[in-house]
């Protein structure tokens, strides 16, 4: 099955029906392994056991940016290639990305209180991630504000691409500005600064959360396709009802067809 085949929503639904149980199982297994390794990771010589928050905080922080990157690629698909599933993918990803960003902010705050002595500081990294969270909420509001999905898709795609400017700002904020947040310690020139006893559980948790995102995203895309089918069928039902009442009043005698085009 090629990428072009997946442009057909019906084929996409068939694929998700086959793939989702396997993805869900892989997610559960990886999460179980990651949580076990996180629980058994040693205490940090400075932070003590609070280092365990890292295994939740960092994967969520990575995914908060990764999901926006996925939405940006999908937005290009909407604006440039007009792929029928592109705006479905972007819309379905937004609430999941917002949840990951919320968790990154919350767990970061809970990690910051014992380590920095404060829950919040208006420094570049924290503020730029908060802006990312607000942009997720704004996108979700925009999708809900416009009834027609295709009209909403174009506006949302432009907003998503503009918002992608925030991604390098978040990533390099710790290098460009003097921040309370520590600089990159995993993905950096010269290799990871983390010891293997922390790095391995962290990478396992990152893979587990990425699998979780893929699973939830495919399921949410399936829901969105079904929602659009419901919408088009309801519009047909409404037009049938209007046509029937017109015919009943004598203006026309034709019977309406039951058939409709769907997503």
């Amino acid at each position: 099955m090629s990428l072009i085949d997946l442009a057909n929503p019906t084929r996409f639904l068939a694929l998700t029906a086959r793939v989702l149980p396997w993805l869900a199982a892989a997610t559960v297994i990886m999460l179980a392994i990651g949580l076990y390794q996180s629980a058994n990771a040693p205490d940090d010589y400075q932070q003590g056991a609070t280092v365990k928050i890292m295994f939740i905080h960092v994967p969520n922080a990575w995914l908060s940016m990764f999901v926006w990157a996925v939405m940006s690629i999908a937005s290009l698909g909407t604006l440039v290639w007009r792929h029928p599933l592109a705006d479905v993918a972007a819309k379905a990803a937004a609430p999941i990305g917002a949840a990951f960003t919320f968790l990154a902010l919350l767990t970061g705050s809970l990690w910051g209180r014992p380590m920095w002595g404060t829950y919040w500081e208006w420094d570049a990294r924290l503020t730029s991630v908060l802006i990312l969270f607000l942009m997720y909420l704004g996108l979700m509001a925009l999708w809900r504000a416009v009834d027609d999905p295709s009209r909403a898709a174009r506006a949302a795609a432009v907003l998503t691409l503009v918002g992608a400017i925030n991604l390098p700002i978040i990533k390099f904020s710790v290098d460009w500005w003097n921040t309370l947040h520590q600089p990159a310690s995993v993905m950096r020139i010269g290799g990871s600064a983390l010891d293997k006893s922390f790095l391995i559980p962290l990478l396992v948790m990152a893979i587990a959360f990425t699998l979780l995102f893929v699973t939830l995203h495919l399921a949410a895309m399936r829901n969105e396709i079904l929602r659009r089918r419901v919408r088009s069928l309801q519009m047909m039902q409404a037009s049938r009802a209007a046509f029937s009442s017109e015919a009943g009043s004598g203006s026309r005698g034709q019977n309406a067809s039951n058939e409709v085009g769907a997503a």
Partner: protein
Amino acid sequence: MIMSLGPYASFIVTSYAAAAVVVAILVGWIVLDYRNQTQRLRELDRSGITRRSGRSAVDAP
């Protein structure tokens, strides 16, 4: 064996609990949304509104 989380145990436990709750809400929302959409499609199917292809809108392909 009881894991020792030190003096900041409440921060660690709250972080993991919050992640569990948020993920559970996401999963629950997606599962309920799927049930809701398939139920609405079945109702439309029963009332005679079908897709142009003649297939049920609920069962794909």
